[in-house]
């Protein structure tokens, strides 16, 4: 495979809370929220990578950070081989990489006309900019004259906002007539040493125009490439073209955003993102605010544009069916990390990570058979990114936590033990929960309740050493030794999932999960 267009390596974005002056004076420890915590992926040219996850998993932050719309805490992003975070001038990067936002209502300025909204990126980048579209090269060593090669760059049409270009080559009057070599639609040698060439270019490659000037001495040659009309006209024409390209009509260029429906507004957002002819777009939940019938229109539009313009997409979404529809490859995020990535069909047909499996299972299908489909709803909530779980971050909800080899509990029973341990460690349980309400014979009551707890609250299949360990832990808790209780339970039940952080393997469809072979070390 060729070099990827975008390479993200170990990207991190932490937000810090409680770090202002007052907090410093009060000596409060700053708390960092790890929104994105070590994310790596590539996006190949021309493909769509779907980045999927639930709210709060850091997918949008990833998209914004890699575009340098937010300052990254750590990590590296290379766009077409160049390190984005060390660029001093972002101009070119901004032209080549754009973004479409989720909310078509708040992302368009209500006081600007649609035309101005779409032209704004052109204005910001000071386009059209004739000075940057052509170069010349004068070659003296030609018998009988001097040959000047005028090179019109491949983005001339974009920079000038028009497909109809005119190249004028101006040189010292009096050095002799000039000839243009090659076939062009319109060549007009003028007196006074000016040659005009009209070009109708699709401009997908650089164009050389050879000018032969019959002169004995090297003349001063000046080259100018220009499009018809003023800059304002050119920009407006470009806005009209873009409106039509996204399925609206050029006549709507002077309307205001409130005159459009949600789907139409999203089209305007897409037109704005296309104004600079980018190669790469971050699409941040571009259809989630839209109704399904309109959502389908926008998805089709995005596919068409990708095909016509050769775009590369990073498609961020929480809706799995949309992601499946549009992506070539998918990365699944959970709590700031990528837990699985792979080709779209493999992810959806043979998901490996238990989180991906749960996510896929949870989506209600619009089919009559849906009522009968068994869904194992995930337990619990997403933990806080302020204090993520050790090891595998999904282990607190995972239906397949790996018990130590000598523990003989069923998965359900093991889950209960793990939940108990978690509450114990979080300090949610205290001796009074075990000791019962104000009994004199504390130990007897404790013992009875221990049996009851072990028998009822914990699954019945805890026997032998497992049962002893639980019992011991609860007894210690009853005696007020919380640390001892934590230790007793951990010694017996600590899972590999909490000790070690699983990583993505070096393969096409890796899953960061201990159920699969993990690299050594």
């Amino acid at each position, binding site marked *: 495979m060729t070099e990827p267009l975008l390479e993200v390596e170990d990207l991190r974005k932490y937000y810090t809370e409680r770090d202002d002056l007052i907090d410093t004076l009060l000596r409060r420890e700053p708390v960092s929220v790890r929104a994105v915590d070590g994310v790596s992926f590539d996006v190949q040219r021309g493909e769509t990578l779907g980045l999927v996850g639930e709210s709060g998993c850091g997918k949008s932050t990833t998209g914004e950070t890699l575009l340098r719309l937010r300052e990254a805490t750590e990590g590296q992003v290379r766009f077409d081989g160049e390190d984005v975070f060390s660029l001093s001038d972002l101009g070119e990067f901004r032209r080549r990489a754009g973004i479409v936002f989720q909310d078509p209502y708040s992302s368009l300025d209500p006081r600007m006309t649609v035309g101005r909204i779409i032209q704004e990126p052109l204005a910001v980048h000071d386009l059209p900019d004739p000075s940057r579209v052509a170069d010349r090269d004068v070659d003296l060593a030609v018998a009988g004259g001097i040959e000047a090669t005028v090179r019109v760059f491949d983005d001339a049409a974009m920079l000038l906002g028009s497909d109809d270009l005119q190249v004028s080559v101006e040189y010292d009057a009096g050095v002799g007539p000039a000839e243009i070599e090659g076939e062009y639609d319109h060549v007009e040698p003028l007196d006074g040493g000016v040659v005009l060439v009209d070009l109708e270019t699709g401009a997908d490659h650089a164009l050389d125009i050879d000018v032969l000037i019959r002169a004995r001495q090297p003349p001063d040659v000046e080259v100018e490439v220009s499009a018809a009309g003023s800059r304002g006209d050119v920009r407006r024409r470009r806005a009209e073209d873009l409106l039509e390209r996204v399925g609206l009509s050029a006549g709507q260029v002077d309307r205001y955003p409130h005159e459009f429906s949600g789907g139409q507004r999203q089209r305007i957002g897409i037109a704005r993102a296309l104004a600079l002819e980018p190669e790469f777009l971050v699409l941040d939940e571009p259809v989630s605010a839209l*109704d399904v*019938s309109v*959502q*389908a229109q926008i998805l089709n539009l995005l596919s068409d544009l990708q095909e016509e313009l050769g775009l590369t997409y990073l498609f961020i979404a929480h809706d*799995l069916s*949309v992601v499946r529809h549009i992506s070539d490859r998918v990365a699944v995020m959970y709590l700031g990390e990528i837990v699985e990535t792979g080709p779209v069909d493999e992810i*959806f047909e043979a998901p490996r990570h238990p989180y991906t499996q749960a996510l896929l299972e949870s989506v209600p299908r619009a089919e*009559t058979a849906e009522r009968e489909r068994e869904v194992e*709803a995930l337990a619990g*909530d997403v933990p806080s990114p302020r204090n993520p779980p050790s090891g595998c971050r999904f282990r607190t909800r995972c239906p397949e936590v790996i018990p130590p080899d000598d523990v003989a509990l069923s998965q359900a029973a093991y889950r209960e033990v793990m939940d108990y341990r978690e509450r114990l460690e979080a300090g949610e349980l205290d001796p009074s929960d075990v000791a019962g309400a104000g009994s004199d014979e504390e130990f007897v009551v404790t013992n009875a309740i221990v049996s009851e707890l072990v028998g009822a609250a914990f699954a019945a299949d805890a026997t032998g050493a497992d049962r002893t360990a639980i019992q011991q832990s609860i007894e210690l808790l009853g005696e007020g030794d919380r640390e001892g209780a934590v230790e007793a339970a951990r010694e017996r039940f600590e899972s590999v999932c909490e000790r070690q952080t699983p990583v993505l393997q070096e393969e096409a469809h890796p899953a960061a999960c201990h159920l699969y072979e993990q690299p050594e070390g």
Partner: protein
Amino acid sequence: MSDLLRVRGLSTRFFTEEGQVNAVESVDFTVRENEILGIVGESGSGKSVTALSIIDLVESPGRVSAGEVWYRKPDLADEFRSKRPDAVDGDFVDLQQLPVGVRRSLRGSAISTVFQDASSSFNPAIPVGEQIAEAVEVQRRARANPRSTRSRTQGYGLAQYLLDGLVPARNYTDTESHERAIELLEQVGIPDPAERAEEYPHQFSGGMLQRAMIAQALAGEPDLLLADEPTTALDVTVQAGILELLSDLQEETGMSIVLITHDLGVIARTCDRLGVMYAGEIVERGTLEDVFEDAVHPYTQGLLGSIPDLDDPAPRLQPIEGNVPDLIDAEMANRCYFADRCPKAMEECLEKPPEFDVGGEHGAKCYLAEHGYDEGQALPEGYFEEQAESRGRQGGEADD
């Protein structure tokens, strides 16, 4: 199964600056006992306003302009049989014709609601348990004295303010309602309900808060729960849990649920029967099989075709062209409202279709249900654009 609620010809209008908006247009449907009925539609189709109209919560500038809402309530029927014979039909009473006080007393105790956004439905400054206990208390007091519907939520006037200031420890709720609130929290699957009851809404996750709101809706042991997009703001893994909870609660308590959503997957997961709404009307109704397997109305077909299939992705989606109409009365011709987006629009569609019986419970407001598509009758391409243009011209002239 007998009927619990019969809605007939319900119309709701909003009188806005832009003109009269026909949000709900002559809607009929029946909710049976012990079932989950789905109402599906896109934004602006009138599905939420339908629910608000049933419990009389439409706010100004909106008003229920026509229609009957027959609710089965034998004791009320007996009470009003002689006083208001028009408002009683067997065991049913027409909620629209009952006095305001009686209607209000039914809210929560007979018909209860769960809304989409739980975080804005709770008061952020009062513990969750307290707010649920308050709902319990309101119902308890209302039961003790059926004509008194006063609750603290209605007394935010100056007198109440002064009274609260003078007697700060005055509690509206008592221990009994608190205990009931904790029971309710447990019933909706919140772990450690006694501790969670003391917490404030911001300490709850989205899914937990939605469960708490369901608990609050259950406080009055309603016969009918109107759930308006109850899972839309939630992640799929959480949504799965809430849908399961609603189904379980329905089975346990024997109440009926009207589930309003834009998501056909949610409907497929929970409902037995459904109605599809478009532009304020129910355009197709039937059992899940009727609507999903044999959809007649092109809108229903379009809706089903627009959803990307998770298990079997099609290379290209089949969207419905165009946009949902604004529902402004002046712009709504008396035609099938979907005709301008319909790939099979015919000349007769310029006249509003009645509901045709397709068989069993399956009905559709579309001439295709009566006879097939007749290409000879097809409307010329661009017909509606021309209409809109000529209307625009007339409007322009009128302005001059």
